[in-house]
């Protein structure tokens, strides 16, 4: 995987990331796990986790990491510059050229549509992450359909009880207790280690 390829991929992604970086996870998954399998699913999940718990912009961390594993420092620079440069250009256009950008009909339309896509993307990211934690393997939709209609077997696909408990705890503590992301993730790691010791 060349540095130019990395730069181009991340530049492409950054143009559609409206309202923050969380939308990038499905894009990265498709590109670096499915189309060009440079990471296994587990390794990629660990990479995403590590870029969440290190300080700094999360997607920038992920991009740097992917670039570094592929092409060293040059790759890391190429990937993170790819993620940043389109934004530099676009936000200078927004600041200098376009008056009242958010009031134009065109921009309103794009933003309205992209919000729908945002909800769909994060729901998809939940499914992807659940396949790496709550379930023992990625959700096999086709076999699940056969299972419901014809009762076919679901070899290898099951629910991890410990991970399900942690996910539910995280859900309710983020919703009701309003703990911060880092508090939830540190307690997630502790619960993961402790519960696996017991069960």
């Amino acid at each position: 995987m060349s540095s130019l390829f990395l730069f181009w991929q991340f530049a492409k992604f950054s143009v559609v990331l409206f309202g923050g970086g969380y939308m990038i996870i499905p894009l990265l998954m498709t590109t670096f796990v499915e189309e060009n399998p440079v990471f296994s699913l587990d390794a990629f999940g660990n990479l995403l986790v590590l870029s969440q718990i290190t300080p700094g912009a999360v997607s920038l961390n992920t991009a740097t990491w992917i670039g570094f594993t592929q092409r060293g420092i040059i790759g890391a620079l190429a990937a993170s510059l790819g993620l940043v440069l389109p934004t530099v250009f676009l936000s200078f256009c927004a600041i200098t050229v376009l008056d009242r950008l958010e009031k134009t009909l065109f921009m309103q339309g794009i933003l309205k549509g992209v919000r729908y896509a945002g909800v769909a993307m994060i729901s998809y990211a939940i499914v992807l992450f659940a396949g790496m934690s709550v379930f023992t393997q990625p959700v096999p939709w086709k076999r699940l359909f056969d299972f419901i209609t014809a009762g076919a077997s679901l070899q290898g696909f099951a629910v991890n009880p410990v991970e399900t408990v942690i996910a539910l705890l995280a859900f309710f503590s983020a919703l009701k207790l309003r703990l911060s992301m880092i508090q939830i993730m540190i307690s997630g790691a502790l619960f993961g280690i402790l519960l696996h010791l017991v069960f």
Partner: protein
Amino acid sequence: MRKSFKTTPEKITKKELLFRSGVLFYTFFKIALFVVGGGLAMLPVIEDVFLRKHKWLNKKEILDMVILTQTVPGLIAVNASLYVGARIAGFIGSIAALIGVMIPSLMIICSIAYFFPDLNPNNSYILNGFSGIRSAVTGVFAVTAWHLSKEIVHSVRDGVIILILLILLLANVYPLYVIVLSMPIGFFLILKKQKKLLFKEKKHE
């Protein structure tokens, strides 16, 4: 009503410009080095430093910053640093702030990736810790999705649109195409709403 975003700061001397750029670089470097939780967690810290401590930005400009991060595609941290930099010290300032945001990520991640290149460690404690965090992230994402949909879904139509987009994603359509597809849908809906408004106005006349 809001006027256009202002870019260039009021006339300042070259010395003041360099000083401000230095402060911008240093501040954003420090924020990116210490704030965990991504761009969204950085915004309150940025507000604290430039609104309360230095008093270089006013409340309206902080609001503009938030609007810009929602309007212009890209990472929140990057958009925020570019706007704050441009507002305080023009082009040079925004580049200084941007480099300040980027360098800690490069430093920290490259050194972690260099010393611990193995993303599938053999230690079972570390593996269990990772899988615990992955489960926690699943839960946190579910909360984000919940808040977002409460804001966006007002009718059955909204729900159906999101469901169709999600099914496309699950059917392995390239995610980029799904985002691009959503744009004309939103545009169409806005046009429809606008037409309705015009129609109503005519009726009133």
